[in-house]
């Protein structure tokens, strides 16, 4: 451990950490995201109310405006909806789901994309050709459409009774299966470059199996850009999930994500209870904004051309 | 009066860890019609000197002090639009890579005609004819047809000819040529150099020829200035500097050029490498590598003094030897 402190210092002093410290935007976004993550993880303890536990709801308190408005109550900071559910608590739980789906789908897409990219780049030949054709076709369609389609197919394949419970898995699969292509392409490119390098030759002559070569040697060297793609992808994944939920084919009202909350609130737009829509929408926007800003900064910081 | 004077130029780049001086107190002058070679290793500051003359140093770099004078009048502190008028019309420039120097989506003719119309106020017809003449002048066959072709339809050497035509078509009195032949095939280099030399002689155009290749200088230049770590170390007539170099660095440069006919077992090198530009040590920058360094070379920086056919900045010459 004797070289840990110097390593830590080198990291703190390195260009990338410096660039982070210098960029107010990056730091603020990171803090905001951290706050949101923590809220999401600890929602059950933090939220003033569990909005899905009917026992905790008091219908008398429905349709209350936010605490600072006339008629509001401090117990319900951001107001309540038509079924007396606390908007703030709903947002906390909703963020939990939104982030869960977002992360899970990004991980799925990344794992799938990296694996396929490694395979295609390393094995070449017909495997690569087929993979690239599929990737090309997928990329020529807008992601929302692909996600909708996969979602539709998966839901259709399930009996309607199981649809509500499986919504989470279905969503993660739909979004993950849509977004793997970017990872695959980048990793494939890097793999093809690495594959020709001498240390791979050396490993091959030593008799190392193909799988081992791919995982132990090539993989660590092609992971760099994956992080940047993943960050940008996270924002997109959260947005896609929100959109699918809003359209009614995502998370159901019994287990709502931020998108579902917005959809529910939308129905009451004309009846004047704006807080049921505006606050979840704001939370969603801030979340995606923070992710995008952080992703932008990361991409610029890691861009060799701008150094 | 000289055509161009650089008076104690200091070019500075602010960086995260403090300002960095790429050119430290450089002075030289150039007469009308003269071809001056500016030679040195990568990072010596020669390209930046060229950029300082045309006023095209990339921000945040800037000329911290010193003056650039064209025919006696200061040009380094001119407002942007006045400087723009000088560029092209009085001072032309040629860069290293002919492929990227030409805009790929416009024909060669359009680029020539635009330049001439901006500076010489010609009408379309006259400009077009002039452009054809220029293409012929730089040795491009069938110029009339080629005028309407795109840069990618020309080979590398041809492109550089077009670049030369573009630089000269507004009839400037001075050209800054930054490594004009480095990106070309060896067989083509000689042709381009002789073309450049001929055209400049014919039109009385002075040239600052920036390069790291002494061979190019020997072929083309009248005088040569040697730069090291952002400073001028020697300047003089080409024949003298090449055959009897004064500064130990120049001597090292000359000695390290392999000569045909002489069989050496090892290539001569100058030991170590040029120092980084940050936190320069006191004294002569070359002292750590100099085979003839004396004690005070490490503490007192030598100023350029008259010697040979020009000047040299070395304690071996002048009063302090």
């Amino acid at each position, binding site marked *: 451990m004797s070289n840990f402190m110097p390593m830590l210092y080198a990291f703190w002093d390195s260009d990338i950490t410096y660039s982070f410290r210098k960029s107010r935007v990056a730091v603020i976004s990171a803090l905001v995201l951290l706050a949101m993550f923590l809220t999401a993880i600890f929602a059950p303890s933090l939220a003033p109310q569990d909005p899905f536990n009917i026992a905790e709801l008091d219908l008398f308190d429905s349709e209350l405006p936010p605490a600072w408005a006339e008629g509001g109550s401090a117990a319900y900071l951001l107001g309540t909806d038509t079924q007396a559910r606390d908007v703030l608590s709903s947002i906390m739980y909703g963020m939990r789901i939104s982030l869960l789906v977002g992360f899970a789908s990004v991980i799925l897409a990344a794992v799938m994309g990296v694996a396929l990219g490694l395979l295609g780049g390393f094995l070449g030949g017909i495997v690569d050709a087929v993979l690239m054709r599929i990737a090309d*076709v997928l990329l*020529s*369609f*807008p992601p929302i*459409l692909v996600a*909708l389609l996969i*979602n*539709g*197919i998966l*839901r*259709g*394949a399930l009996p309607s009774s199981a649809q509500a419970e499986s919504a989470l898995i279905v969503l993660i699969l739909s979004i993950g299966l849509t977004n793997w292509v970017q990872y695959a392409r980048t990793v494939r490119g890097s793999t093809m470059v690495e594959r020709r390098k001498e240390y791979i030759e050396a490993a091959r002559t030593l008799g190392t199996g193909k799988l081992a070569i791919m995982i132990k040697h090539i993989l660590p060297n092609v992971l760099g850009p994956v992080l940047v793609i993943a960050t940008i992808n996270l924002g997109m994944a959260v*947005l896609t999930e*929100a959109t699918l939920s*809003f*359209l*009614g*084919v995502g998370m159901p009202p019994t287990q709502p994500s931020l*998108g579902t909350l*917005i959809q529910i609130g939308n129905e009451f*737009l004309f009846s004047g209870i704006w807080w049921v*829509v*505006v606050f979840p929408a704001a939370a*969603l*926007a801030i979340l*995606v*904004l923070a*992710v995008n800003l952080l992703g932008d900064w990361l991409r610029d910081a890691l861009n060799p051309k701008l150094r | 009066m000289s055509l161009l004077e650089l008076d104690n130029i200091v070019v500075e780049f602010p960086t995260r860890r403090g300002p960095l001086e790429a050119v430290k107190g450089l002075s030289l002058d150039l007469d009308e019609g003269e071809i001056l070679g500016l030679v040195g290793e990568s990072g010596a500051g020669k390209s930046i000197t060229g950029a300082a003359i*045309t006023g*095209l140093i990339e921000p945040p770099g800037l000329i911290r002090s010193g003056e650039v004078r064209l025919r006696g009048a200061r040009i380094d502190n001119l407002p942007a639009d006045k400087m*723009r*008028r000088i*560029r*092209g*019309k009085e001072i*032309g*420039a040629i*860069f290293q*890579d002919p492929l*990227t*120097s*030409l*805009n*790929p*989506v*416009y024909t060669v003719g359009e*680029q020539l005609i*635009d*330049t001439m119309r*901006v*500076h010489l106020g010609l009408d379309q017809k006259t400009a077009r004819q002039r452009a054809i003449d220029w293409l012929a002048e730089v040795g491009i066959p069938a110029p009339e047809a080629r005028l309407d072709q*795109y840069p*990618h*339809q*020309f*080979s590398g*050497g041809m492109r550089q000819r077009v*670049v030369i035509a*573009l630089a000269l078509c*507004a009839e400037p009195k001075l050209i800054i040529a930054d490594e004009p032949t480095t990106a070309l095939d060896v067989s083509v280099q000689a042709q381009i150099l002789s073309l450049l030399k001929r055209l400049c002689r014919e039109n009385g155009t002075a040239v600052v020829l920036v390069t790291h290749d002494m061979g190019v200088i020997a072929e083309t230049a009248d005088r040569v200035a040697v730069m090291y770590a952002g400073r001028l170390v020697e300047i003089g007539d080409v024949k003298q500097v090449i055959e009897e170099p004064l500064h130990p660095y120049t001597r090292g440069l000359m000695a390290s050029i392999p000569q045909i006919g002489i069989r050496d077992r090892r290539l001569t090198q100058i030991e170590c490498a040029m120092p980084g530009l940050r936190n320069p040590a006191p004294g002569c920058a070359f002292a750590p590598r100099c085979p003839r360094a004396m004690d005070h070379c490490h503490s007192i920086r030598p100023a350029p003094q008259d010697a040979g056919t020009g000047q040299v900045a070395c304690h071996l010459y002048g009063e302090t030897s």
Partner: protein
Amino acid sequence: MFAFLIRRIIQAALVMLVVASIAFLMFRFLGDPISNLLPEDATVQDRAEMREKLGLNDPVLVQYGRFIADAAQGDFGQSYRNNRPVSDLLAERFPATAELVLVAAGLALALGVPLGIYTALNPRGWLSQGLQVISLLGISVPTFVTGILLILVFSVSLGWLPSFGRGKVVDLGWWTTGFLTVSGLKALILPAIMLALFQMTLIMRLVRAEMLEVLRADYIKFAKARGIPNRMLHFKYALKNTLIPVMTIFGLQLGGLIAFAIITETVFQWPGMGFLFIQAVNFTDVPVMAAYLVLVSFIFVVINTLVDLLYNVADPRLRAERTPARGV
């Protein structure tokens, strides 16, 4: 050029075949046409007859062939939801989506390109900084949220513009248009803005990034060294280089507009193909889903091919693949 065209057309046909095959698989394995098309109290015999009538007892390959042949003619059978021919439904809804998409595309281009150029040329001005922020919001705030906000402000609070429907439309033979009535135009405004906003910010960012990249290029440096005035430098020399890739990307994005129209149509209850598709997904109305998929894929493939062609014509470097560099 001709060979290129043929190659692209074959590629396009292959993609369409793949898409149609996926559609066929959907038909085969999703949902149950029989229970959807027959009333609840149909007898076993009714069902058997229906199976025969629909040709569901034939070998798979035969069904596949029949499906492809029908699809090529635009026949996708009946919608499960409302028992009408799918092609009729789509044809009815097509003009609504088309008009919306066209107006939105025009808006996005007309605003996005000039603003992108402006922010590239004046990166530090306050307007540029402001636009940068707005563009960041534009791609972070989900489109349906912008739509809802628009409705909140312009329909609920101010009451100026309608929040659903197409207004009054005029029949022009097979096409119905909202362009010719005041209420039609009014109804078009908010949805078009919502749809255009995302694209506009995308284009703005794209143009800006592309132009900044171009302005750093050597040929711009050389033009500057030749004393080319700024106006000409930016608007002649840098602009063309910027717009060529931007145009092609925009063309490819048109497909995205059609997809995003789904969301816009849902928010504004706009009677277009997108709204139809969402209802179909909700209901698992497979024929409509499949038909929408094939139709939209077809549109994409056509657009992609056209864009490729255009790019080949616009960029002189690609045009001259047949005239190799000569000379020394």
